[in-house]
């Protein structure tokens, strides 16, 4: 390039810069200030929403006037059907079908349980799953924080002022549906948390890695959701498409190999750590020689990066023992006891509970498939019944060692037919356990509603349920230190199929080795002592 060409190019660039500067200066005068919300539509300005709504379904109809496929999409999700068919076993799963380790079964208890259904009016078997206005848009899209659904209303929000819990003297005000409808937005942590933080009926009860402390978490609690940092919402990872939320526990990718997937690229499971981080995410010096990155062939990311779950005062439930339910206080009245920090410890309706915080997970090989013990399945009451069994053999491709919260308990079963029982717990009728404290009546209604036979006998069996831990990812400095596994009786004690330096040894090599060293030491010591003590026979030739 000649000097003249250079000069010319420089002048052209300068001219272009001046030009854009002038244009940029013009932009603010082009229109109003940028609206505060991210969406391209301001719902508070729509006349369709500027009216008094009496019920949830009325709001849904208004939503569907524009979002005409939204209800159909939702109706294809688990959030609506509460049903999952295991593609491998054909087993019918999902909240509608399984018996869990907490409130056990939704069947015959719909009016209460459906407080967490993304719909309105599921009271019993007769619920019409095809009715579009029964889809609840607001529970996920409310941004006002005023939309609440309570047990007992089959998924409807509060339309009239109501005492809750009954007899508590506390009242819940009706929701202003117009305000909620006008303020709809993308779901936040608080929206998802409405149900997922409160699974099994209370804050933190079920998961252990999901509770209300994640609404506004500090960095130490979760690096991604850190309110002052990355501030991820749930759907950042659980990316949705057509209202299908990625990353269900029922179809979990226990391992994912390969490079990170840029957002937008088709990904079989965008909710895994590896979708953004890849499966070899550690930058390591020669001193580490890719040691951490090899760990990813054996361990799930969560195993090291979630050192403890329930890292806060909310805590989580470890044990629910139904066998003591219906026990009354000395005055014959139901009792409610709390533990030292106010979490439920005993309830005549429900039995005994044990809660705790800052819990170390239990570890298991897991390939993402889970076998459930559901309604009517035969059980062996002499053993602890696994409500769900995380499958996966040591070192099988696709299996990794995963952290789990294992929730233990006791629940009712049929000692003759050898299956778990469906119990009618919630309700105001005379057979509901929580109303009348009568097991046989509650079981009769429960099993009848489920359409299953009952021998008339009941007893309690030990059960456990495993929950993969995937949230509350700690900052990297808080990851599980090496020595917590690489030591005798460490975190991975009892896990098959791995050779852990520092833990695993060969008895023979160790015995022979230490013995040889000891003999060498003793031998040389004796040799030395003898050398020093045996009197000289020949004088030394030189001093």
């Amino acid at each position, binding site marked *: 390039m000649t000097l003249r060409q250079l000069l010319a190019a420089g002048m052209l660039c300068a001219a272009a810069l001046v030009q854009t500067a002038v244009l940029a200066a013009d932009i603010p005068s082009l229109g109003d200030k940028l609206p505060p919300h991210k969406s391209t539509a301001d719902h508070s300005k729509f006349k369709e929403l500027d009216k008094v709504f009496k019920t949830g379904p009325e709001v849904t109809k208004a939503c569907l006037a524009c979002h005409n496929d939204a209800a159909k999409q939702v109706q294809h999700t688990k959030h609506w059907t509460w049903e999952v068919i295991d593609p491998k076993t054909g087993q019918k799963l999902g909240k509608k079908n399984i018996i869990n380790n907490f409130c056990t079964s939704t069947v015959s208890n719909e009016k209460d349980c459906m407080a967490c259904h993304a719909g309105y009016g599921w009271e019993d078997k007769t619920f019409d799953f095809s009715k579009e206005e029964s889809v609840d848009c607001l529970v996920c899209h409310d941004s006002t924080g005023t939309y609440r659904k309570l047990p007992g209303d089959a998924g409807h929000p509060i339309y009239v002022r109501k005492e809750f819990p009954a007899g508590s003297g506390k009242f819940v005000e009706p929701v202003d549906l117009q305000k909620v409808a006008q303020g709809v937005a993308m779901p936040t942590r608080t929206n998802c948390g409405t149900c997922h933080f409160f699974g099994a009926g209370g804050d933190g009860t079920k998961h252990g890695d999901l509770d209300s402390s994640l609404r506004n978490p500090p960095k130490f609690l979760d690096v991604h959701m850190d309110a002052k940092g990355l501030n991820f919402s749930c759907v950042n990872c659980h990316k949705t498409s057509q209202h299908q939320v990625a990353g269900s526990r029922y179809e979990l990718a226990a391992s994912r190999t390969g490079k990170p997937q840029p957002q937008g690229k088709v990904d079989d499971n965008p909710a895994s750590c590896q979708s953004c981080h890849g499966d070899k995410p550690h930058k390591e010096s*020669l*001193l*580490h*020689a*890719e*040691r951490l*990155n*090899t760990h990813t062939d054996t361990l799930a990311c969560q195993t090291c990066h979630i050192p403890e779950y329930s890292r806060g005062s909310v805590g989580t439930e470890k044990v629910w023992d139904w066998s003591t339910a219906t026990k009354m206080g000395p005055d014959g009245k139901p009792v409610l006891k709390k533990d030292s920090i106010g979490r439920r410890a005993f309830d005549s309706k429900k039995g005994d509970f044990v809660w705790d915080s800052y819990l170390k997970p239990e570890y298991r090989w897991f390939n993402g498939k889970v076998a459930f013990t559901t309604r009517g399945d035969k059980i062996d009451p002499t053993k602890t019944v696994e409500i769900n069994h995380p499958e996966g053999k040591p070192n099988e491709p696709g299996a990794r060692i995963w952290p789990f919260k294992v929730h233990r308990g006791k629940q009712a079963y049929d000692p003759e037919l050898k299956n778990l029982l469906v119990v009618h717990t919630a309700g105001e009728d005379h057979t509901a356990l929580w109303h009348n404290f009568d097991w046989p009546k509650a079981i009769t209604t429960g099993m009848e509603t489920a359409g299953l036979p009952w021998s008339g006998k009941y007893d309690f069996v030990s059960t456990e349920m495993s929950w993969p831990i995937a949230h509350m990812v700690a900052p990297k400095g808080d990851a599980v*230190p*090496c*020595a917590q596994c*690489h*030591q*005798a009786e460490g975190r991975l004690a009892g896990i098959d199929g791995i*050779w852990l*330096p*520092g*833990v*695993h*040894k*060969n008895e023979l*090599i*160790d015995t*022979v*080795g*230490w013995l*040889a*060293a000891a003999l*060498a*030491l003793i031998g*040389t010591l004796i*040799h*030395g002592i*003898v*050398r020093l003590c*045996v009197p*000289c*026979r*020949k*004088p*030394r*030739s*030189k001093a």
Partner: protein
Amino acid sequence: MIDPVRPGYVYLYKRYERFWHWAQAALIIFMMITGFEIHGAYENFGFKRAVELHTLSAWTLLILWAFTIFWQFTTGEWRQYIPTFKKVGAMVHYYSIGIFTHAPHPFHKTTSSKHNPLQRLAYLALLSMVSPIIWGSGLLYLFFAYWKDFGLDKWLSLQGVALTHTAGAFMMLVFFIAHVYLTTTGHTPFAHIKTMITGWEEADEH
């Protein structure tokens, strides 16, 4: 061969040789300390730190060896390790009987033959057996992450490599104990050590 500069003394170990010997000694002692911690025998640095320090010393030893092998060949000193069975019997007799009666040492060190025949055999065993076991298994252990890239994962197991390495470490420990003891068998307990520090050996001595 009497040194003209310092009558009565032989200059047995040159400066690099002494440096190499003590550096290697320090590294090996440190590798035993960190290695057996990794093995789970005790807790000192903590597992992670022990692994890092062990690896660091391995790299350092590797570099030291690179120079030393070069040195051995350019100076011809490698010939010191050629085994000889001459006088092996005499050496065994000396260590088991003669040493207690203050019999004269059957071997006289010279610059061309610094090690007694038993020593030669011991060092050769160390070089040809213990070192390859430790190095071979140590490098494989260190580069476990790369086995797949070279198809080694079909042939090797971490367990086998770790156990081989541990066995090598025990051999090294036994060698170390015997070696340290034998340094005290000069005409005074510290004579050999002094020689290895200064390089000078008293000429008339065994």
